[in-house]
């Protein structure tokens, strides 16, 4: 269960939000909405432990999401609005590097299957610079597919995805929630998620 108590965040002199408390149990999703600049990304970065909140604290299963706790870190998958791909590496190498960095492991067949699942089988050995924005996003989806993290923090996961990609994302999220995973997503696009598992948070 992801809990945040009395969070406040500011950017420079500007107060983005304060007194924000969140409780997302396993198997549930929280969709964060709000206009541009309302603090969606900031909230996700705080939940991921990347940024420090101005006030309040974040816990994952009772453990503080801190800077030096590999247990919570290994449990969190944060996908920012840039997909962390290296142009020089192939799709397959990029995926492997991301999975390994998150503390997981994946052999060649697993990587290949994950890339095939997101429609990149024919392009798995192409350098990432040869991929389109949508295809780069799909590598991020493949990463979600392989990973074993129980908390997903997705920042605008639907950006640059086509209808097919959106369906893939929805299927991944539905499977994640069905396995008692937890999800917090900041998005403008409406995600098709199981209605009984989703709550919405409006910022700003």
């Amino acid at each position, binding site marked *: 269960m992801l809990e945040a108590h009395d969070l406040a965040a500011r950017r420079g002199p500007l107060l983005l939000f304060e007194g924000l408390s969140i409780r997302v149990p*396993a198997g549930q999703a929280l969709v964060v909405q709000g206009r541009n600049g309302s603090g969606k990304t900031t909230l996700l970065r705080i939940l991921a432990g*990347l940024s420090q909140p101005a006030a309040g604290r974040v816990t994952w299963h009772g453990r503080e999401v801190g800077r030096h706790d590999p247990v919570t870190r290994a449990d969190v998958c944060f996908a920012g609005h840039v997909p962390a791909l290296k142009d020089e590496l192939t799709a397959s190498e990029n995926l492997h590097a991301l999975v390994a960095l998150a503390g997981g492991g994946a052999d060649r067949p697993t990587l290949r299957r994950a890339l095939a699942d997101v429609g990149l089988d024919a392009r798995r050995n192409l350098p990432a610079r040869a991929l389109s924005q949508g295809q780069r996003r799909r590598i991020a989806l493949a990463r979600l597919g392989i990973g074993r993290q129980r908390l997903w923090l997705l920042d605008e996961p639907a950006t640059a995805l086509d209808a097919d990609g959106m369906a893939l994302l929805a299927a991944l999220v539905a499977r994640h929630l069905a396995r008692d995973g937890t999800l917090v997503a900041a998005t403008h696009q409406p995600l098709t998620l199981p209605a009984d598992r989703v709550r919405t948070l409006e*910022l700003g």
Partner: protein
Amino acid sequence: MSATNQSQRESTAARNLAAVGDNASDRRADEAAVAYGVFAAIRWALVRDLRIAVRSRAELGVQVLFYAIVVSLFPLATSPERNLLQTLGPGVLWVAALLASLLSLPRLFASDFADGTLEQMAISPFPLSALVGGKILAHWLATGLPLALLAPLLGLQYALDGAALGIVAFSLLIGTPILSLVGAIGAALTLATRGGGSLLALLVLPLYVPVLIFGAGSADALRAGLSAAPNLSLLGAGLLVALVGAPLAAAAAVRIALD
């Protein structure tokens, strides 16, 4: 403004975890400390960055060429007198190494910062300082080591004898890792600033001065008929200090840049 999730549907997994309590999570922490070790982290960064370096070797070539050209400029600009060149040689080889190192430093973190990899590293279960250390090691292998290996060849222009060439190459071999390590702190500190490249030079060059003094001084000592050992020992000591301190400092600077 605030939304509290009132859902009562707590999963069995979450309940079990809560019931088992702190013992289980402590044990998981111990396991995690073993699983996400320093060496695995260094290996991850080293393999990845070396692979990237090999694929973008044109950029590395530019740096090595820069080194070769700067070193070759001095005999052209000063007199071809043997004694003067022999005096200048080690210093020029070292100063050019500093400049070449500055040329490659901004790349150390910039692309990882821009494409979000640095964020992923910062929230990875592996220690960030070890990941950064692996990056620095890869950076040195790709940019510092070639300079040290090239130095004896370029030193021939300065009529340096075998012993002097050997000392210069060896001092570069110990000294260039310090440049990469100390430079990494500067590179991380200037990540979030505008015009980071020139600021980086201002920040890092003064810190390079002791390395330069002991590095170039080792060959001078030899020329004066003294032993190069004190200079090289001090350089080695500096390397050890930088090895321990720099990855930690650079990792802290990376976190500041990301926050």
